[in-house]
């Protein structure tokens, strides 16, 4: 076994070993059972409910739950937008940075409220420490908690026995922050500081180098934001270059910890699902489908990065990995692992520049995002996104055998399937239609940096990333243009709420149904056959929608590369 293969396998093993107990912990937490942290945190929780006037025991209908989600996110948006526009007048601005422009503030506020963390700005240049901490860090927590809450509500819709209620958004949100995100973020942040991630409120340091030139070194309270950016699949870096910056990700250990945090909660949610629906095998089946697609993508990326760029190897007279846009301490394999994890998980942080990855790697990243971020996906969002495909998969299976489709004993009928298709359509709308607009409008097209097929990949990536609520970028793309800040703001809203609301609708429709006992004719949804069916559904529905665009982008680029064509 090569060291590279061993490192990847060890990472995956540690990930699952940590995610299984976390998943079980979360199942207990959301069922309102006693957990390890209850004695410490229950008083805080009660105090929060009493100040906010929340009746914790009240279970909401799907409409009330959805209204609460939207009201909370709207309030978060307005608050963050106002802060970004006013940062020049607010404290903790040692570098004296000016307020953000309206379109950029809109884009940034939407980006953090929707758990996308697309960054059309550069943190060290355009954001005060106040905006980073009181604005962005808060949304890193609560946008993640929103996704977790929605996933839990959707699970309850599948799991409940006809009561018709999905739980309480405010308690799901509060518990996600208090019991899961805050403790793990605190541990992570302190380990990261120990590795050299900066955490200070002082301003830039000016160094005089050994050769006598001046080097201004940006600093800031980075560690606290980075821990939660990974944990909550947010991905918005403290610095513009994200976790490639040596102050954000200084060592291989900090890299592996952040890499684990990217996938930890999304993987754990598979096991939470199994527990909450009362059949652990159901969670394992979903995990198996996600893990299979993850490993397949990772294999392509790791291979193509290790093989390197043949044109550069020819110039240098040296065969070896693709190191353009990569840090020496991570090399090709750990960059490939990160790139696959961050695009699968809807995280969007990077430790290497995706724009400079090989074409087939870019293809995998694009596919991970375009299919709707369901390979583990965003915290919560990945699970409810995959449940959307589950609804479609059992529907297809039902058509094939001519029976009413069922999942977990509940009939999947016209209403559920219509809502699932509606939610599914937000991806092609946000990616294909908006990308087509960007290519057609000259002002928008000017944002493209690279000529040739890679230029199209840049546009597809920008809209795939924003609609998929991922947030990573082919960063050569000039995302700061007002056309794109505005359109991508809309894409992010679409990719978030045009999926959340229909999914809650599906959960609401299922919540009133009483599950039937399985019969000899029921299609089991926990075996390998179902796993294969689910993967095929994702690949056919997601893949075929986007194949023509991918053929003109990364696939054409791969062919050009083999032919030695330069653009």
């Amino acid at each position, binding site marked *: 076994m090569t060291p590279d293969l061993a490192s990847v396998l060890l990472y995956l093993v540690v990930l699952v070993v940590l995610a299984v107990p976390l998943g079980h912990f979360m199942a207990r937490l959301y069922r309102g059972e006693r957990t390890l942290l209850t004695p410490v945190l229950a008083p805080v929780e009660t105090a929060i409910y009493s100040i906010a006037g929340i009746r914790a025991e009240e279970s909401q209908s799907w409409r009330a739950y959805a209204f609460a989600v939207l009201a909370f996110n709207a309030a978060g948006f307005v608050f963050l937008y106002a802060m970004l526009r006013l940062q020049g007048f607010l404290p903790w601005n040692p570098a004296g940075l000016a307020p953000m422009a309206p379109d950029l503030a809109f884009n940034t506020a939407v980006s953090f409220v929707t758990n996308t963390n697309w960054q059309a700005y550069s943190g060290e240049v355009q954001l005060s420490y106040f905006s980073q901490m009181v604005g962005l860090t808060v949304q890193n927590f609560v946008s993640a908690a929103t996704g977790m809450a929605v996933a839990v509500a959707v699970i309850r819709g599948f799991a409940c026995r006809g009561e018709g209620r999905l739980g309480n958004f405010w308690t799901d949100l509060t518990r996600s922050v208090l019991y899961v995100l805050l403790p793990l973020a605190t541990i992570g942040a302190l380990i990261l500081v120990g590795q050299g991630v900066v955490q200070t409120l002082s301003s830039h340091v000016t160094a005089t180098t050994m050769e006598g030139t001046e080097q201004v070194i940006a600093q800031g*309270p980075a560690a606290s934001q980075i821990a939660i950016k990974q944990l909550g699949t947010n991905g918005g870096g403290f610095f513009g270059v994200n976790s490639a910056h040596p102050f954000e990700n200084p060592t291989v250990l900090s890299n592996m910890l952040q890499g684990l945090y990217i996938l930890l909660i999304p993987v754990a949610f598979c096991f939470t699902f199994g527990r909450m629906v009362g059949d652990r095998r159901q969670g394992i089946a979903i995990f198996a489908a996600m893990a299979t697609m993850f490993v397949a993508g990772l294999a392509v990326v790791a291979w193509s990065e290790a093989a390197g760029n043949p044109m550069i190897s020819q110039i240098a007279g040296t065969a070896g990995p693709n190191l*353009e846009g990569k840090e020496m301490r991570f090399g090709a394999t750990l960059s490939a692992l990160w790139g696959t994890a961050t695009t699968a998980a809807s995280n969007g942080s990077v430790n290497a520049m995706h*724009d400079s990855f090989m074409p087939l790697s870019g293809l995998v990243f694009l596919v991970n995002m375009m299919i709707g971020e369901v390979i583990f996906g965003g915290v919560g969002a990945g699970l409810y996104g995959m449940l959307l495909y589950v609804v479609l998969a059992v529907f297809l299976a039902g058509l094939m055998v001519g029976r009413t489709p069922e999942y977990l004993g509940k009939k999947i009928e016209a209403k559920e399937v219509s809502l699932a298709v509606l939610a599914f359509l937000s991806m092609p709308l946000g990616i294909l239609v908006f990308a087509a607009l960007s290519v057609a409008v000259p002002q928008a097209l000017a944002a493209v940096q690279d000529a040739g097929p890679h230029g199209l990949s840049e546009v597809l990536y920008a809209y795939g990333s924003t609609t998929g609520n991922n947030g990573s970028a082919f960063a050569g793309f000039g995302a700061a243009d007002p056309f794109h800040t505005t359109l991508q703001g809309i894409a992010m809203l679409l990719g978030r709420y045009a999926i959340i609301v229909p999914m809650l609708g599906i959960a609401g429709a299922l919540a009133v149904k009483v599950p039937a006992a399985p019969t000899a004719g029921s299609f089991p949804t926990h075996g390998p056959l179902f796993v294969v069916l689910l993967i095929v559904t994702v690949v056919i529905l997601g893949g075929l929608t986007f194949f023509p665009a991918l053929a003109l982008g990364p696939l054409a680029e791969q062919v050009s590369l083999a032919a030695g064509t330069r653009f």
Partner: protein
Amino acid sequence: MLAIFRPALAILALMTLLTGVAYPLAITGVAQVAMPVRANGSLIEQGGTVIGSVLIGQDFTSPGYFHPRPSAVGYDAASAGASNLGPTSAELLVTVEERAEAWRRETGESDVPLDAVTASASGLDPDISPENARVQAVRVAEARGAPRDEIVRIVEAATTGPWLGIFGPAHVNVLEANLAVDAAFPGGVE
């Protein structure tokens, strides 16, 4: 309407206090007390002046020092960045050709280490590959009139990784290597 927005605003305010103020300030407090050097950027001082951070790459051009990888931002640590050029970009490939040519002129070696002709992700990469450092050791030794073996030993001391024997490639910290060279054979800047 108010019934929905009251909890929304109250929870937002409480979460802002908890996660936007208390959490980062508590982390800052613990970090500043328990790990002040690391929390403040792992800075290196010489005679009272900060000469840089061990984590942040800086540019070296004189022959008596090891040189870092190419940087898309000229090692501007106030605004990091990469080339972001795709693998078939003519601009990238022409730049790589120029760098390879310069390398061959400077070292007389025909095979160029790939990290010496490609720009890093941050533009602040503090490390180079061991192969890159070994070739540069010849130039550094010559410029300083130092035995090559001694310089190679300094490179080896500044080499770390793979972590746990498997994670990531071996790499050489340029600033550490140059500090060690200066300490052993003074007279680097011409």
